[in-house]
């Protein structure tokens, strides 16, 4: 177009990024790409491969190797071989490698950005300004953790060989999030990029090679879901890390259950974007652009659920529509494009189908008359109004540029709507009122809350979800724990005492004639409740029956979870008060220590001295967690943002605890007390053989001001109701101190609850970490 004409129209015009150097790289390395195993480029024995396309043009970029069993085996073996020397190399040495990788990423940042855009279809502006700089930052930051490993994490070592499977939406960034912390902690890895977007991982492998990273420390194998399964199910993998859909996350959870493998999952989301009437409306709308149209909405933490206060809703939507009309969709290699291509036709169809369903269910779909390229895989920015929480499109993750909008009346309703989801990855709150903003930020159940901003990321702020968005954090100190394990307790973790066999009820009760018959019931919602089934079972000691307890069933579990869910106020009760109540429990327990000691003796056959000492230990244990209640502080993270990033240790919610037989009172306390101290509500299942130590506590609890429902106790035969507890969607986490952890893990997939195979000898901090998860609240500021 002639300058003369442009002077009249004042059009934007194209601003193309050159693909010259990326083409050269592809030509040099392609058209068929190998894999990086044990420091060498290999092609699969089978000769199997698949094609990789540029979704913006449909152009074939090359063929990618499909790793089969033999390649995965050799990659895992290479990682295993490399582990001893890598994990024992000084932190400083690992730091130098990570630093070198960061430097290389920076030096080749444009090549990486262009390759990523060609392969994924996302705008070059994003790969250049977001993805690749965050990758470099991640390696720099974790070079620091490697350097400081020994002084920061004494007593910890690497988990071992890590199998990592990553998605296609941020191919290189997700690779960085996986590899950087793993290497920093001394692990070795086998990583599989997503089949749509393998190429940047291969460029990365070349970088690893060029910095002289020892062979086997990083292995990149390519392939589809089958390859992923070969990795996650491989017997010589110590830890699996997965980012992707909740659906696949479930499969992995099941597949790894009982294997003893560590697991972190970063899964889907349907994150709320809440706008109050006192927000900077225009800025909130710009925030939405970043929330849902960043990376074509293919972002797990996308702010895809707009909640706007009813009083401003009309004006807000008007402004939103005119903003949407200005979004430019097109060739992602144009530097001035807002939205590029959807990663693959299959994904575009999924988006289209969900939109169609949204319309069929009565939603109003609006799309601006944005011009889309004739070729390639594109989808316009889309807004759904006239929808409600009962609409599928409000509940389901679309993973595309589709925003659904609902209104709310007040902050309470906003919080309820925000939390009305299976997910809990992120949330965004817009208000100029600090009280509103902070109150709502703290009330949303999600791992990252952005106040007056959205989609902020930093290597030093852990990212990860609540609920079905997964567990574990990536980034910062909290993220490092996902790749470490305590060194000293390795043997103990395996030594879990199984619950005893069900004992015969043929022995007649031998109650002490001097005492009135005591019938322990269930302890649910602060009341002693008869077991739903109406059955009682004997508890026997070495010299016969010592008492009776209720024989619980799944309905008792149902009631206990109901009670625990109703006790959520405990989570916001201030730490001092929680601590006081725990001290009070200790005080009241001690007053009755003789009675408890007798009971322990009777159940376990311990001599009086030992039984008394267990009671004394239990009292001390309550003291210990009472002391911790107000001392497990969060942190303020240093990030690249001007503002505060507050890392809060929040309670998990409702936690099921299965106790072992050893030291029935003290062991019970060690599991239950830290959870309560941190603000959780607990359903405790006492030792099957020695439950009376727990049931005797009822009266202690009743006199100690512990609010109803905070601690619920269900006795009986574990196998009869633990499955119901493990599968209950109202339970956020399970602590397994007895029995089969794999069964609990398999059952946990219903809501992806976090499962901890308890290590009784773990440090106090480990117990507290397992009692909480980190929420990062991002608070930028300025006048």
């Amino acid at each position: 177009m002639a300058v003369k004409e442009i002077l009249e129209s004042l059009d934007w015009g194209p601003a193309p990024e050159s693909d010259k150097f990326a083409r050269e790289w592809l030509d040099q390395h392609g058209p068929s790409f190998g894999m990086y195993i044990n420091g060498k480029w290999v092609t699969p024995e089978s000769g199997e491969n698949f094609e990789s396309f540029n979704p913006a043009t449909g152009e074939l970029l090359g063929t990618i190797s499909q790793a089969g069993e033999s390649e995965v085996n050799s990659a895992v073996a290479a990682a295993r071989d490399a582990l001893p020397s890598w994990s024992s190399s000084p932190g400083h040495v690992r730091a130098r490698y990570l630093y070198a990788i960061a430097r290389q990423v920076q030096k080749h940042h444009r090549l990486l950005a262009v390759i990523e855009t060609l392969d994924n279809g996302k705008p070059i502006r994003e790969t250049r300004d977001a993805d690749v700089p965050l990758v470099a930052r991640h390696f720099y930051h974790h070079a620091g953790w490697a350097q400081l490993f020994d002084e920061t994490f004494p007593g910890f070592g690497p988990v071992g060989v890590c199998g990592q499977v990553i998605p296609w939406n941020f191919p290189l960034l997700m690779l960085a999030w996986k590899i950087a912390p793993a290497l920093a902690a001394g692990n070795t890895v086998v990583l599989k990029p997503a089949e749509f977007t393998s190429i940047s991982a291969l460029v990365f492998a070349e970088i690893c090679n060029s910095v002289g990273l020892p062979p086997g420390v990083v292995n990149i194998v390519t392939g589809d879901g089958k390859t992923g399964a070969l990795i996650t199910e491989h017997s010589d993998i110590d830890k699996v890390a997965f980012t992707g859909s909740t659906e696949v996350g479930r499969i992995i959870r099941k597949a790894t259950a009982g294997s003893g493998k560590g697991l972190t999952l970063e899964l889907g989301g349907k994150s709320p974007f809440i706008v109050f009437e006192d927000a900077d409306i225009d800025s909130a709308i710009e925030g939405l652009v970043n929330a849902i149209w960043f990376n074509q909405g293919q972002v797990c933490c996308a702010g895809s659920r707009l909640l706007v206060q009813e009083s401003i809703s009309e004006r807000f939507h008007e402004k939103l529509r005119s903003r949407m009309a200005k979004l430019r969709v097109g060739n992602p290699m144009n530097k001035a494009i807002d939205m590029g291509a959807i990663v693959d036709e299959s994904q575009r169809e999924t988006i289209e189908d969900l939109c169609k369903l949204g319309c069929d269910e009565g939603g109003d779909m609006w799309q601006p008359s944005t011009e889309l390229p004739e070729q390639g895989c594109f989808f316009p920015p889309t807004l759904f109004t006239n929808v409600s929480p009962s609409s599928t499109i409000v509940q389901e993750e679309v993973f595309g540029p589709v925003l659904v909008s609902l209104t709310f009346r007040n902050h309470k309703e906003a919080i309820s709507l925000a939390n009305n989801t299976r997910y809990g990855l992120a949330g965004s709150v817009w208000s100029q009122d600090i009280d509103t903003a902070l109150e709502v930020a703290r009330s949303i159940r999600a791992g990252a809350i952005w106040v007056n901003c959205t989609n902020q990321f930093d290597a030093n702020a852990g990212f990860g979800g609540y609920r079905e968005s997964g567990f574990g954090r990536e980034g910062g100190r909290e993220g490092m724990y996902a790749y470490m394990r305590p060194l000293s307790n390795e043997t103990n973790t395996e030594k879990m005492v199984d619950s005893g066999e069900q004992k015969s009820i043929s022995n007649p009760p031998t109650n002490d004639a001097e005492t009135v018959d005591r019938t322990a019931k269930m302890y649910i919602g602060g009341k002693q409740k008869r077991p739903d089934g109406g059955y009682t079972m004997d508890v026997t000691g070495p010299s016969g029956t010592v008492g009776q307890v209720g024989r619980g069933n799944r309905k008792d579990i149902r009631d206990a979870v109901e009670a625990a869910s109703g006790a959520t106020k405990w989570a916001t009760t201030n730490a001092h008060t929680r601590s006081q109540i725990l001290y009070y429990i200790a005080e009241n327990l001690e007053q009755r220590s003789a009675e408890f000691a007798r009971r322990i003796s009777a159940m376990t056959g311990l001599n009086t001295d030992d039984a008394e000492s267990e009671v004394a230990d239990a009292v001390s244990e309550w003291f210990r967690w009472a002391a911790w209640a107000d001392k497990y502080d969060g942190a303020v993270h240093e990030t690249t943002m001007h503002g505060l990033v507050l890392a809060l240790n929040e309670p998990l919610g409702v936690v099921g605890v299965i106790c072992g037989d050893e030291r029935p009172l003290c062991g019970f306390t060690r599991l239950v007390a830290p959870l309560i101290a941190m603000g959780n509500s607990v359903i405790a299942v006492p030792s099957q053989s020695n439950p009376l130590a727990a049931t005797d506590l009822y009266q202690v609890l009743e006199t100690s001001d512990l609010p109803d429902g905070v601690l619920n106790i269900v006795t009986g035969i574990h196998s009869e109701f633990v499955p119901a507890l493990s599968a209950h969607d109202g339970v956020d986490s399970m602590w397994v101190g007895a029995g089969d952890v794999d069964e609990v893990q398999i059952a946990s997939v219903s809501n992806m609850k976090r499962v901890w195979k308890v290590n009784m000898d773990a440090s106090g901090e480990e117990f507290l970490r397992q009692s909480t998860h980190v929420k990062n609240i991002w608070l930028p500021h300025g006048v």
Partner: protein
Amino acid sequence: MAAESRNRGTTLDLELINSIHINRSALERRAGSLPKRRAVKSDWQVAWMLHAIRCIDLTTLAGDDTPGRVLRISQKAIRPIRSDLLSALDLDVDTIHCASVCVYHNMVETVAKSVQGSPVGTCAVSTGFPAGHIPHHQKLEQIEASVADGATEIDIVVSRSNVLRNDWQALYDEVKDFRQSCGDAHLKTILATGELASLKQVAQASQVCMMAGADFIKTSTGKESVNATLPVGLVMARAIRDFYERTGNKVGFKPAGGIAKAKDAVTWLAMMKEELGEEWMRPNLFRIGASSLLGDIERQLEFHLSGHYSAANRHPMA
């Protein structure tokens, strides 16, 4: 500009002023990403730079200004670009000229005579520019004197103390008086944003000035330590959009101070197009107050045409 296209102003709406919410960090993020989101390249860049010239209020506000110096500036405003460069772009010589020449009152007569017969306007800074600490009646007299000398545009400074103390009524009354004194001359209100307490006050003062009838709102005098910044520009552009959506009145925007590079001018234009649309890129609704910007644009243009970098001495000085 036809008289009917001018901002008619409204009554002072304090409720609206008090319900304004501005978030600086979000604006800074938008300002940070906008130039990258909207790069303009090759022929488009040339056209946009040429267009930027059409929006310039070519300014000299120095103590040592003389009629001779001001005359040179006026002539430069009429013919800002070497004719061979324009021919190479297939453009007529009179296609490109600056919007106005902007001077102190004493120089208004010189400018007015010099630009007579050309489309270039005569712009006077007024009302005790830059600090505005003179009696109100003298401010009105100054405006009237400049208009009498031939000024077609008057850039006034608001009393910062009214803004800093949130005395919106006083600000409204003051600007309304200025507007009346302007008569047919267009009124640009300088907020001196670098001296205001917050971006919120920038938004509030923008709204009050527009309610009082300002034809343009302008960021800075060029004499404050902080001049036109993109976050401030976003706040003001959005205030203009808001005012238009509510009242149907179109108010112009003039960033001034510190805009010295061709690239910056293109970014400001991109901001206007993004936030307000193409109509607000035209000189009747967008101006850039600048003195050295033109020189950089000239050099950039020559580079685009010749393929090699240019030097200042090859372009006629102002």
